[in-house]
Structure formats: structure tokens, C-alpha cells
């Protein structure tokens, strides 16, 4: 007998004693239907709610009607904060007019020395001001993690009310979750020293969200 058999054997015995189990087809049904628990009523304005929540979590938020303006907005933001004007972006964003705005953006996964990382988002969640990023070859996880500044371009049409809605979009788009699904809610932080919140622990010091409709 190995550990697996021992543990499962004990669980089986205990379950038999308690006899509270559910018939197997009900369990399978629960998986197939994956019912939602209680969810909050949807906000009237998803974008406004998302913005308000994100700002509460110390993210910076900018908005534009035209995606082509994103590089200009970012360049101004970086200059205002005296941050470097170069970094990396997801390959899918390589086509934006970065150079014209005075930015040098390389389309590749982030390395330790990169200071600005620009990503998109699979979708965003209004309830908590959260980004949902699905990892993949064209959406590397390091871009939102290693640089000190994380910039995410959010399509307002992809802002949903709850995390349940976000899972719904994921099931439709890719079925199973990819290797890494990351929900991001503002810059990394720690309150380990005297329970005092300090921004910029091991991940980004700041998160800039640029709300811009997909082209």
C-alpha cells in the first residue's frame, strides 16, 4: 500500500460512515453545469465602475477613443513621471505607432532589465477593477511581472461585471484555462512590515490602464 491508496482508503471509509455523499451523476452534473453562486447585481456603467475600482487599488487610468493615440498617451505619462521611454510589449501590440510617439518598444517577452512592459488584457472585471490575462506564446506572463511599470491596454467592450462572467468568456474562447491565468488588481504591494501598505513589492511599482477600443 502506498500513500495514495492509504489516504484515499481512509477518506472512503470516513465517507461511508458519514453517508452524506451525493450520487455520482449529480457530481458530474455539477461539473458540467458549473452553476454560479450569489453574484452582485451588475453595475449600471461597467466602464465607470471598472475605472473607479481600479483607481481605488492604486492603478492609474487613462482613456482614449482611438487606439492609435495609445503611444502618445503613454509617452506623456512616462515623461511626466520621469520614467524611461523604452520597454517591451506583447507581439500583438507591436503594430502601434510607438516610434512616432518617441517610444522604443520591442515585441518580445520581458527580461529582468526591462523597465516598462505593455500588455493587452483578455478581459477586465468591473466588480474589483481587475485585469484577466491569459498566458501564451503571444501573451507572455513576464511582461506584466518583471518591469517596474506595467501598462495594460483595455478594450472597454471587454469589461465584464464579475469574475464569473470572465470565466464564461474564457470557456467560450479557449475552453480550458491556459497554463497561466493571471488576475491583476493594481501594482504589487506588501503590508508585511507593521501592516503598512507599500506599493512595489516583487512585481510592478505602478500599473497604468489605458482604456481604448480595439481597432
Amino acid at each position, binding site marked *: 500500500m502506498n500513500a495514495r491508496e492509504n489516504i*484515499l482508503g481512509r477518506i472512503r471509509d470516513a465517507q461511508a460512515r458519514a453517508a452524506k455523499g451525493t450520487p455520482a451523476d449529480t457530481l458530474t452534473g455539477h461539473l458540467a453545469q458549473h452553476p454560479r453562486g450569489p453574484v452582485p447585481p451588475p453595475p449600471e456603467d461597467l466602464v465607470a465602475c471598472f475605472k473607479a475600482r481600479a483607481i481605488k487599488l492604486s492603478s492609474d487610468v487613462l482613456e482614449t477613443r482611438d487606439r492609435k493615440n495609445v503611444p502618445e498617451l503613454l509617452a506623456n505619462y512616462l515623461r511626466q513621471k520621469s520614467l524611461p521611454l523604452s520597454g517591451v510589449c506583447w507581439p500583438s501590440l507591436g503594430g502601434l505607432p510607438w516610434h512616432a510617439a518617441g517610444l522604443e518598444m520591442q515585441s518580445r517577452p520581458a527580461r529582468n532589465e526591462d523597465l516598462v512592459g505593455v500588455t493587452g488584457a483578455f478581459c477586465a472585471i468591473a466588480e474589483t477593477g481587475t485585469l484577466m490575462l491569459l498566458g501564451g506564446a503571444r501573451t507572455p506572463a513576464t511582461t506584466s511581472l518583471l518591469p517596474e511599470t506595467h501598462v495594460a491596454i483595455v478594450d472597454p467592450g471587454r469589461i465584464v461585471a464579475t469574475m464569473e462572467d470572465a470565466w464564461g468568456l474564457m470557456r467560450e474562447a479557449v475552453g480550458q484555462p491556459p497554463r497561466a491565468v493571471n488576475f491583476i488588481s493594481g501594482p504589487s504591494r506588501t503590508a508585511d512590515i507593521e501592516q503598512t501598505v507599500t506599493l512595489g513589492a516583487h512585481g510592478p511599482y505602478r500599473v497604468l490602464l489605458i482604456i481604448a477600443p480595439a481597432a
Partner: protein
Amino acid sequence: MKNNSIDFKRQATIKLADAKLQGALARLQSRFVEGRSAVISEIHDLQETRNAAAAIRDRVLNDLEHWLLHFEQQATARGAIVHWAESGADVNRIVAEIAVQHGVRTAAKSKSMVSEECGLNEALERAGVEVMETDLGEYILQLAHEAPSHIVAPVVHKNKEEISDLFAEKHNLPRKTGIAELCREAREILRPAFLNADMGISGANFLVAETGSALIVTNEGNGRLVTTLPRVHVAITGIEKVVPTLEDVTTLLRLLPRSATGQSITNYVSVLTGNKNAEDHDGPEHFHIILLDNGRSGLLGGEMQDMLRCIRCGACMNHCPVYQNIGGHAYGWVYPGPMGSILTPLLGGLENAPDLPNASTLCGACTVVCPVKIPLPDLLRKLRERQMERGMKSRQETLLLKAWAWLALHPNVYAFATKIGVRMMSLLGGKNKLLHSLPGVRGWSDGRDFPAPAGKTFRELYRQKKRK
């Protein structure tokens, strides 16, 4: 981690007199208790959500075998390797074997209370693997060779001056005094550890059976780094942490960070499924998940099963008047506060932690704030009953309780005895109506006075009033 719960009374007395600790505990209370109360009301229907969360956990526990097997099947299908461990020693052996198998020399670790149960760091060091804790709190504790004193805020017992001194000594850098500077220094020291580690070690807040995923909630980003950069990732968690679906886990996530730190959501929620595929640029090539029993299966199907609903938010300890006064170290093992007072005797033996079930006034604050509605005071009471049944109480306590039980069953004698008792105590209480010491229970009156009764029993007063 060695269980030192047997020393609870002595440690509690020391902690009560520790002024620095008392300051730290006051801070914890204000930040976490007030923080929780500020955001918990954001939940549209809190009671309905708590009921749903408790029901999700119950559903899992009632069919744990089914959900674990489904999880194992899904995780394996995605390329993860699932290991089963009976004890902490099993976990240590499995991780050491994985390290040998993949030629691992250095490991970066994010916070895991289950790994604290096992004493994993020491075991890995013995196996020749250099382990770096990367959660700021755990890193500080590793430098100081101390154990965590809270499951969410492990270094709550230390103030920033102590941490400044520690960093200055261990890092050999000029002493910093600001909290932001200290955090920056730790970040700069730890970044190379993430980049160079062969293995990342994490816990898992939940396992999702539907998808075979391990889910971790973190704020610092170290949890993401240790599960993204190293070529091997080992996630260690308890067998009870499985949850059926992504929707189920989402309901629990509405409650966990709000109850724990007063955050609507943690900075990062990472759902990790399988290992990296050929096109991916990041992620581990090898993903191992270790499921630890360590006594948990023994709680299933019995009167203690509700304890396995626990999602480790720490709200019970933040709100516990005992924890608030003595902190976590006095409890002697990994889990302090009300949940620890139940888990420690159940996982480590009641005989090794005889004081813990009694380290509670049964005020009930813990169960009011528990997101999964664990009846903590009831479980503590059941442990006290077990102590009584097994003859683990002192002769004095047993005799007193027996005498009281006899009295309670003989109302006339009870009335007579209390009539005399309250008069005597009232007399002894003097002008201030305070008893400075109670014969036989000195421990109780050492730190406070006992208010003397008014001179008549309730029944006498009631009869008097009725006559009027």
C-alpha cells in the same frame, strides 16, 4: 515544524508582558479588523454568500474522494505530476527527490503554511538545496531564524526597528529606517534569487477539480515569480483544499481576501494549470503538486469535519481576544488563534496541546466572522469534552466539575449552597465588593479582581420582586 503547544501557559504569560509585542498586536487589530469591516459590506448579500461558501466546502468534503480523483485526473492530463503524502516527512522526501531528479540546487519559495507543517526548509537544506523564502514576511523570519506568528501576516510580531537592524546586519548595507526603503532593499536582494532558482515552491489556496488547476492568491508578486521563472514548480497543499469548479472558487474568492486583509481582491490571483508547452516563453517545464494528509482525513465523517472547511483567512485570530493579547507564537505550532486551537490538537494530538482548547472564552467572535461559517466555539467545546472523557483534566478540575454537576442536579441543595456562598463572598469582598484572590483558582485572580456578588442569589431576588 516542532510542536511546542505543551508550553502554552508559560509562553502566554511571557507574551502578555512583552510590550513590543503588545504594540504590534494592537496594530494588527486596527488594520485587519477595521480593514475587514470596511470591505465585507461590499458583498451584495453577505449571509447568502457565506452560506454558499460553506455549502461549497461541505460538498467537497462529503465527496472528497471523488473530487480528489477528478482533480488528479485533470491535472495529470495537463502534464502535472500529482504526489500524495501521508506526513510532513513524506512531503520533504518527495520534494528532495524531485530536486535530485531535476538537478535542483537552489529553490525560491513563496509563503506556504503547509510547508511550515513539514519543516520543509530545514529538510531541503539537509538535502543540499539552498532555499530562499521570498514573501517579505517569511524572508525576514528566515533571516531571523524565527517561526511565523500569523498565517497571513507572518512577521506581525516584529516592528520596523527590529527589521532595520536585521537587514543592516544580514545584508551588510547601510541601515534603512523607512518601510518603503526596507521593502526596496528586500526586492533588490531577492530579484536574483527568482532569476537563478532552479525550483519554485509554492502553496495552493485552492485546487480546482474541473480544470486540474492550482490557485494562489498573493499581493507581492513573488507567488507569480516562483511559478513563472524556475524550470521546476512544486505546489504543496492539503488534501482538503480541492474545490469543484471555477465558479465555486470564485464565490470563495469574494470572501477570502476581504476576511483576511480587508482587500476586495488580492493583487494577484494566479490559476496555474499544467506545465509550459513548446511555444510558451515562460512557465515551468515540470509541475509537481503534492497533496498532504497529515491527519486531515481523520477529521472526515466525524464531529470535527467542519474544521476542514477552513480557507485559512486568519479572520478568527484577528478577532480573537486571546490571540489579540498573546499573538501567535504562544500557541506553539503553525496555526494560532481559534482555528489553531482546534487544528493543532487534532493534527498533532490532544495530549500535546492540552491548553489550546481551553485558550478561549467562547465569546463567539470567531464564528461570526468566519467566511465559511465554521462553528469554532462548538468544536472547542467538543475538544474539552474529549479531554474530560479521556481523563485529561486535572484532579482538581474534574472534582470541581463533578461537584458542580451534582449540585446542578439537586436544585434545593444548589439553592442552599449558593445562598451561603454569595453571602460569604459578599462579606469577603468588603467595601469595594472585589475579591483580590480566589482560593483554589489563583491563576484566574492573578491578573484581575473577582467582582463579589451583591449578597443575595438571583432566585432570592426574583422571589422578592414577585412578592411585591
